[in-house]
């Protein structure tokens, strides 16, 4: 055997050694669970015990039997509102960070302020909103003290609005970082060129900066949408009966009803829809991505 061939073989073996841990991880924690999920979704239950089978009945039930489809759509709507809200809040922050923060220290501080809430547990943050929005919460107390209202508002907690609000608060950092990463790529000279050609700040924003930042906006929106749609803590804590989301349904099917095949079917549908959405958004991102 030639020396070159032996080196090539050695290289391949080394590559395999490097790839083994991630491959193993992927197989054990992703591939096998997905297969199991699919396997469970095709089965059925009898007297609260799982019975293996090969029937798509449960998958069809996700679309046919109430409340699955309507809860799924409601979750998607809450996810969409969250994505929109997070984008609206994140854009100015990312813009400031990218273009109006010259000193590295100020940049670091803002960056830190964006990240720091993530050091606190999610549950705590969701609970915080409960104390802000609740009947005896900060907002009601303030409005009562100011004599703007005479009895506590109940409209602001335990509904879809409070869920969206909480989710927006929690997931906005993802949008900020995603939009910021895209804005950061825009060379200063392009903005200077625009104003040099006579564009006002607003014209530069609408004609140049926003179109160029679209891929980041899209990427941020899809992350927040996905995270919010699948959330179960916010609806459980601040949601109330009106804001039950798909993950809460899955939890109930698993832990209360012991209907694993139905839970797995919902999981499969959510994964399928999610994959499709991410593919579409990736395609759009790619199309919107200007090459500098």
């Amino acid at each position, binding site marked *: 055997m030639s020396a070159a061939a032996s080196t090539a073989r050695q290289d391949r073996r080394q590559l395999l050694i490097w790839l083994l841990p991630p491959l193993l991880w992927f197989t054990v924690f992703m591939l096998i669970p997905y297969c199991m999920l699919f396997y469970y979704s095709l089965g059925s239950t009898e007297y609260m015990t799982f019975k293996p089978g090969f029937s798509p009945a449960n998958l069809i039930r996700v679309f046919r039997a109430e409340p699955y489809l309507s809860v799924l759509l409601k979750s998607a709507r809450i996810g969409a509102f969250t994505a929109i809200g997070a984008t609206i809040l994140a854009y100015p922050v990312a813009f400031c960070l990218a273009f109006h923060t010259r000193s590295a220290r100020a940049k670091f501080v803002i960056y830190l302020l964006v990240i720091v809430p993530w050091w606190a547990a999610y549950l705590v943050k969701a609970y915080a909103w409960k104390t802000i929005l609740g009947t005896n919460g900060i907002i009601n107390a303030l409005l009562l003290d100011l004599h703007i209202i005479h009895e506590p508002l109940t409209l602001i907690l335990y509904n879809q609005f409070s869920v969206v609000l909480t989710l927006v608060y929690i997931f906005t950092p993802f949008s900020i970082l995603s939009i910021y990463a895209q804005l950061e790529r825009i*060379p200063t*000279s392009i903005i200077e060129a625009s104003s040099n050609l006579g564009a006002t700040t607003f014209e530069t924003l609408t004609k140049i900066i926003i179109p160029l930042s679209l891929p980041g906006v899209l990427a941020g929106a899809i992350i927040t949408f996905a995270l919010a749609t699948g959330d179960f803590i916010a609806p459980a804590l601040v949601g109330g009966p009106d804001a039950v989301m798909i993950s809460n349904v899955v939890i109930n099917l698993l832990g209360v009803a012991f209907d694993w095949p139905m839970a797995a079917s919902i999981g499969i549908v959510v994964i399928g829809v999610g994959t499709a959405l991410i593919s579409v958004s990736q395609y759009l991102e790619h199309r919107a991505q200007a090459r500098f």
Partner: protein
Amino acid sequence: MTPIIEARQLRKHYGGPLAVRDVSLAVNEGEFLSLLGASGSGKTTTLRLIAGLETPTQGTVLFRGRDITNVPVAQRDMRMVFQDFALFPNLTVWENVAFGLRLRINRGRVTSDQIKARVGQYLDTVQLSGHAAKMPHQLSGGQRQRVSLARALVTDPPVVLFDEPLGSLDANMRKVMQLELKRLHRELRKTFIYVTHDQEEAMGLSDRVAVLQDGQLLQLGTPDDIYFRPNCAAVANFIGAANVLQGVAEVAPGRPLGVQLTGGLRLAAADNAAGIANGEAVTIMLRAEQVRIAPAAGNTADGLRAQITERLFLGETVRYELDVPAAGLRLTAIAGGDHLRLSLGDDVIVTVDPRNVRVLPRGAGPRVDA
């Protein structure tokens, strides 16, 4: 006539040393003026102050006699061509060129037919008519710079600013674009202010050159002035290859000015004798191509004996570094590449025409204060 652009005592301070130190210059209508200097000389900052992309710490910028120091960039009648082209990556070539005009459509100053005609005309001018629908990233560097040029010219600004526009192009493309810029300037009769670190480019293109160093304007003059009559050693050293030497003037009635160099060598100098006293310390400049060398072997001509310590073949010319042991001097000489084939270590005879020995003015040059 009022200059179209005038900078008065412009100063820019970012923290640290001054980026621009009290630069004053006037640019005439239709002129091609270059700001020449090494990196960090303040040339780009000066241009950006004129464009309004930076605010001066002190000083004023005037446009046709009117103070525009506080006029925003978008309202100044100047267009800039950037070193990195700064094309809008989300717009096609056509849309890039039309950008400035389309902004005016909103303000009712131009119609969409006029835009079509003008954009077409300027794409023609820069020979890019066939590329109108392409995106900037599909073009070569030279083509991108043409787009950026067309984009700047299409709005018909009286002043066009260039920030090292050819800096990111390869050597051949630079030469092509230099000719193109020269042609455009001649045809359009606009005022061009051009920043470059390339002295040949500055000399070749400009009507006048402003030489900057450490934020200061050292000399402003025609390429001829800058080259043959530098006002200080810094300019002489920066432009071309020059021998700048220190010496003491020897003035005697009825005799031409002589300069006793530090090494003991005496040079006759024809020019600029007026006002220099006997025994005064002077700085002289001798252009490298005016240092004549000939093989020493079998040569009986009067001249300095020197030895070649370095030889650089540059194509059209050959650059020689010479060691003159008798005077403890090192000289640079440039000779035509065709007529002399001297080698490293050869002994040569050096002759200098007194008319080419230039005595530099006293007191000029960069200030050393903070």
